[in-house]
């Protein structure tokens, strides 16, 4: 996909912005607090109808205004889509080619971007739940069966948790059956994408660091993914789950971990290693999206270059130039390597492009 036009009205510190865009790499630069991240947040919102920084919509609306407007022309598979989004404190309203979109989920499943952002890196590193939702987002986009299984599972899990706090547990076997059925679909597909990524990660990481390196994504499901085995596990768990008042095992407890060789887990990575390994995952996911769906997501790399040594900066830049995606990079200090490359520079000052 390519965002061909982007406009923002009263969005964060942008009063009125109109920006024609094309495929290729954009370097968004400027001092801190001028609106670099706000701009890519706008691109992200155009794809996902959500921000990667806040869940509170009012924070997106410019000071003193009651509504924000985002508009864009997005090209996907050689078709232009004109998207218009109205953001108010009460919610979002969306039009696609001038038609109102009643179900926002149908819009969200249409466009996808890959995001690197320091806060998300922190969350990815520290919270298992964030890692799960990270892979859930991509899988839901790639595979509608996964999306369906995940949505159903969430309903089942909520129902089961509520039931476990009640007296009459007679319907629990039925809920557990559904829990395991959907759980097995989720586990199978999480296994598949883990294997797929592991075929790519060492190559991409070595590419970025310039030396041969191993990197593995480990997936530890909390159940086995075998219908009969898991059904029995849950049967034996009923009494403990009743006491706990919630489901103790299931896909909502699955773990994703990244390890370098010799069992060195993510907790022991340096800041720079964390950064470069997550970038490697994103670049691997980009390959997966392209190969499995012929889809090239917009790639948003917020505050990309800090804490990366100059070799990695150079290798990464070279890697990005080899991609056919539309790429947005924000940075306060563009590394010297970029000076010799074909990039479009957007200099941001106080909510304007100068």
């Amino acid at each position: 996909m390519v965002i061909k036009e982007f406009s923002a009205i009263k969005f964060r510190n942008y009063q009125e912005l109109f920006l024609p865009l094309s495929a290729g790499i954009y370097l968004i630069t400027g001092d801190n607090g001028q609106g670099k991240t706000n701009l890519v947040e706008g691109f992200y919102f155009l794809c996902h109808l959500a921000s990667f920084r806040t869940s509170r919509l009012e924070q997106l609306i410019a000071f003193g205004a009651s509504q924000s407007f985002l508009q864009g022309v997005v090209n996907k598979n050689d078709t232009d889509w004109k998207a218009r989004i109205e953001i108010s404190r009460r919610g979002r309203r969306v039009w696609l080619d001038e038609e109102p979109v009643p179900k926002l989920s149908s819009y969200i499943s249409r466009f996808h971007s890959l995001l690197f952002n320091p806060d998300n890196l922190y969350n990815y590193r520290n919270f298992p739940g964030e890692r799960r939702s990270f892979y859930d987002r991509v899988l839901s986009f790639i595979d509608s069966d996964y999306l369906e299984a995940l949505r159903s599972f969430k309903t089942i899990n909520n129902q089961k948790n509520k039931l476990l706090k009640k007296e009459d547990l007679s319907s629990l076997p039925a809920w557990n059956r559904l829990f395991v059925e959907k759980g097995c679909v989720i586990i199978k597909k999480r296994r598949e994408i883990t294997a797929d990524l592991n075929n790519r990660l060492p190559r991409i990481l070595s590419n970025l660091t310039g030396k041969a390196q191993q990197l593995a994504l480990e997936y530890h499901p909390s159940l086995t993914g075998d219908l009969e085995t898991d059904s029995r596990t849950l049967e034996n768990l009923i009494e403990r789950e009743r006491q706990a008042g919630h489901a103790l095992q299931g896909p909502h407890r699955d773990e994703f971990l990244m390890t370098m060789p010799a069992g060195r887990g993510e907790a022991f990575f340096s800041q720079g290693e964390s950064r470069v390994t997550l970038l490697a995952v994103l670049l691997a996911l980009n390959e997966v999206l392209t190969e499995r769906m012929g889809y090239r997501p917009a790639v948003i790399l917020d505050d990309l270059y800090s804490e990366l040594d100059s070799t990695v900066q150079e290798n990464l830049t070279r890697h990005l130039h080899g991609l056919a995606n539309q790429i947005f990079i924000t940075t306060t200090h563009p590394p010297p390597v970029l000076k010799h490359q074909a990039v479009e520079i957007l200099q941001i000052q106080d909510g304007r492009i100068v």
Partner: protein
Amino acid sequence: MNVPAPLERLITELSRLPGVGQKTAQRLAFAILRGDAPRAKSLASAIGEIKDRIRFCKRCFGYAEGEHCPVCADPRRDPSVICVVEQPNDIYVIERSAVFHGLYHVLLGVISPLDGIGPDQLKIAELTARLESEKVTELILATNPSMQGEATALHLSKVLEGKVESITRLARGLPVGANLEFTDDVTLNQAFTGRQRF
């Protein structure tokens, strides 16, 4: 809106109906006001009567005017097959498709702990009693393909196992989360003919 109080009241009442927004409610209210008086009175009495005259069928919990609903009272229906549905209106959807000739049993709900509804609040004991007193050979579970509908069907298949020769579930093909109410006749037909044993 600045309208006389009685009109305001009608608009408010109409807008409480499902699928009726403020705008539609206004349009309906103005249409009623513009129409002649006997029509309006007739509408009002129809609404007034419905709660007094319609009750649940003693046998299947569908809608009935007397003791029994038209389906239960019809001697041509096949009493050996019972189709279990969530709500009385589901009966009319299936009847419209003319694919089913047996009797019904309405649960009057679906298992949903989040809404505080457990098996005890549904007409399951009444269904069990029917299986014991009537000559039933097949039970078709036609709850909606939502997770609550699936859980209810699974629960029924477990607690009623052995009480009837065969328990079947409508074939998938109905999209998940879809409602029986909004399913077209062809899809429903396929779901009935392709029903599977538990």
